[in-house]
């Protein structure tokens, strides 16, 4: 039986609801921009970052958003590369969300630079041995490819590019997350990093966070515009999210088990798993329990089957856990001291050698990070309003075509 013809239309909902939401997002963005100006104008001394913990909360937000961006594109890839009929109608929105999240993350990353006004230097001077330089190319390419992909999905005239761009976007997003993971994987100096598993782990993290973002924004959009969203389709997404959440837990397990085997890395493992105080609590409570076990239970327990609220909550928890996971990778990885002198303890040093570095993020850093999320959401809200990315109805197709 042929599937019902899909009609896409711009996101329309009652004005107060739409403009109210947009106004709230704009307000958050303005606060974030003011924070960025304050930090740049005074210098980074007003932040919690130092020469010991050089990347702080803005980087956690930025990496989180960039990782999620490539994952958000997965829904489109499943539709076009792997031919999933239930996913295909969601492809356009998936592309839009991916662009939005990446833009949000990059704004945060850029505004935290010591010299953000030198962006032109960053795009005219390339050191091709640097993963960062590669990432600049990967990010720009992502915007271009996903942009064309989106166009091919929306415009009938560009349909001939659909398949090619679909494949290109899929491979590009894999490269992008590999690049993001490798930012850490290539740092030989620090014990928490320097592991090849970082790159594939970041890919699976992106699957999970990206899909969680997708489910939440899709549900919000359909709630906003009072459109129909079928339970069957949502259940498919939900089950897929469960698989990804489990996979992230598995990769974390392998990462830590590998480290536990290497005597040299016992210190940093002990720090994260046992006696790192705040970081240990964050790991077990935030990453493992809130971000892993509880969502898995909510997604798979028959008690919550067909419960939309549970799906939304589980997705939010996955995002919170994911944020914590990145926080631990970025911050705890730097806070734990580098071993410069194996077999020796540092009695004194003016530069915090051998001691756990302190980091408490400032409000401005948090505001800049939140602005990144707000920018992503604003782009999605405006994009969905002006482009035909969302089907008028996502009610379940006939049972036989499922």
């Amino acid at each position, binding site marked *: 039986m042929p599937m019902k013809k899909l009609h896409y239309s711009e996101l329309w909902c009652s004005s107060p609801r739409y403009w109210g939401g947009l106004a709230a997002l704009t307000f958050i963005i303005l606060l974030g921009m003011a924070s960025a100006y304050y930090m740049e104008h*005074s210098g*980074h*001394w007003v932040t919690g970052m130092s020469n010991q913990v050089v990347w702080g909360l803005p980087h956690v937000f930025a990496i989180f958003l960039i990782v999620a961006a490539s994952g958000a594109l997965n829904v489109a890839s499943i539709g076009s590369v792997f031919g999933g009929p239930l996913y295909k109608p969601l492809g356009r929105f998936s592309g839009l969300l991916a662009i939005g999240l990446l833009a949000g993350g990059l704004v945060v990353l850029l505004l935290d630079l010591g010299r953000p006004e*030198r962006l032109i230097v*960053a795009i005219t001077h390339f050191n091709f041995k*640097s993963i960062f330089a590669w990432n600049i190319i990967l990010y720009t390419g992502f915007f271009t490819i996903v942009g064309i992909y989106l166009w091919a999905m929306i415009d009938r005239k560009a349909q001939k590019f659909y398949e090619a761009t679909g494949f290109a976007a899929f491979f590009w997003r894999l490269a992008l997350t590999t690049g993001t993971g490798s930012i850490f994987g290539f740092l030989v100096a620090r014990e928490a990093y320097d592991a090849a598993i970082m790159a594939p782990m970041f890919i699976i993290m992106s699957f999970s966070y990206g899909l969680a973002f997708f489910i939440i924004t899709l549900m919000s959009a359909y709630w906003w515009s009072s459109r129909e969203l079928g339970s069957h389709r949502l259940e498919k997404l939900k089950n897929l999210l469960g698989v990804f959440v489990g996979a992230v837990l598995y990769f974390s397990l392998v990462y830590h088990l590998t480290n536990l085997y290497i005597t040299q890395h016992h210190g940093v493992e002990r720090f994260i798993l046992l006696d790192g105080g705040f970081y240990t609590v964050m790991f077990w409570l935030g990453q493992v329990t809130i971000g892993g076990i509880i969502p898995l239970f909510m997604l798979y327990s028959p008690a919550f089957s067909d419960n939309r609220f549970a799906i939304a909550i589980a997705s939010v928890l996955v995002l919170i856990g994911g944020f914590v996971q990145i926080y631990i990778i970025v911050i705890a990885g*730097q806070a734990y001291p580098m071993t*410069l002198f194996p077999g*020796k303890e540092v009695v004194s040093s003016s*530069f915090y050698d051998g001691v756990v570095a302190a980091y408490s993020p400032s409000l401005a850093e948090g505001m800049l990070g939140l602005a990144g999320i707000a920018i992503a959401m604003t782009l999605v809200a405006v994009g969905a309003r002006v482009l035909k990315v969302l089907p008028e109805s996502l009610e379940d197709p006939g049972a036989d075509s499922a």
Partner: protein
Amino acid sequence: MTGKKEQPQDMKRREFIGKTVLAAGAVSVAPGILLTVANAKTEGEGASSNIRWGMLIDSNKCVDNCTACVDACNQENGIDLMQQPKGQGDEMWNAQRPQWIRKVKLRDRQTGEVTNLPMMCQHCEFPPCVDVCPTGASFKRADGIVMVDRHTCIGCRYCMMACPYKARSFIHQNVQEQTVRAPRGKGCVESCNLCVHRVDSGASTTACQDACDKDGHKAILFGDLKDPESQLSKALKEKSSRQIRADLELNTGVRYTSL
């Protein structure tokens, strides 16, 4: 036929023009060349790969509680001109202020042996900071000095993440005063450059070595690793020395004995 006759004349004209241009060029360029020749081994000449600057630090001679090298470095490179921002706590100031060289005191976990040493940029042959820098601002000169081009540094701090020696500092605040020798700017990264301004003007010691020598400790020896006749090369041949984190195989330019 006429064409053939005219040819030699034309050639002469060309020759004349050519020679005039050559002469004019020589007249205007010569002073520059002569000046460069006259200033050989001083300012203006590029770094040579026939040289590799390095250092040997004898931890046995490094005295507990002595900070002569640190103080000298701070003065030489204008670090002491940096002011603690109003409202910043002492602990945070210490974590955020630039430190090109620092004193570290160690105790062996097994034997209890205590060692003192100065830590700074180790001027690796294969510097991770240079590998990761997206713009190429972090670079290694032909003579082995690793430093930051502060015109192209965007302040991303990836080099600080990559450095195994924690040798780099980010400028967290506005810079009020600075020296011509060591220009500095908010939002850029910097680190020990083996007193590159001294090296480029022909000096054979760094500020830290001078200070250590002056106090009579003589724990720091600066010199050319590639010159077999240099004091440094001879000392390295005599004593057994080691690199910090030799496992990373970065072939550091700074070596330590009695560590």
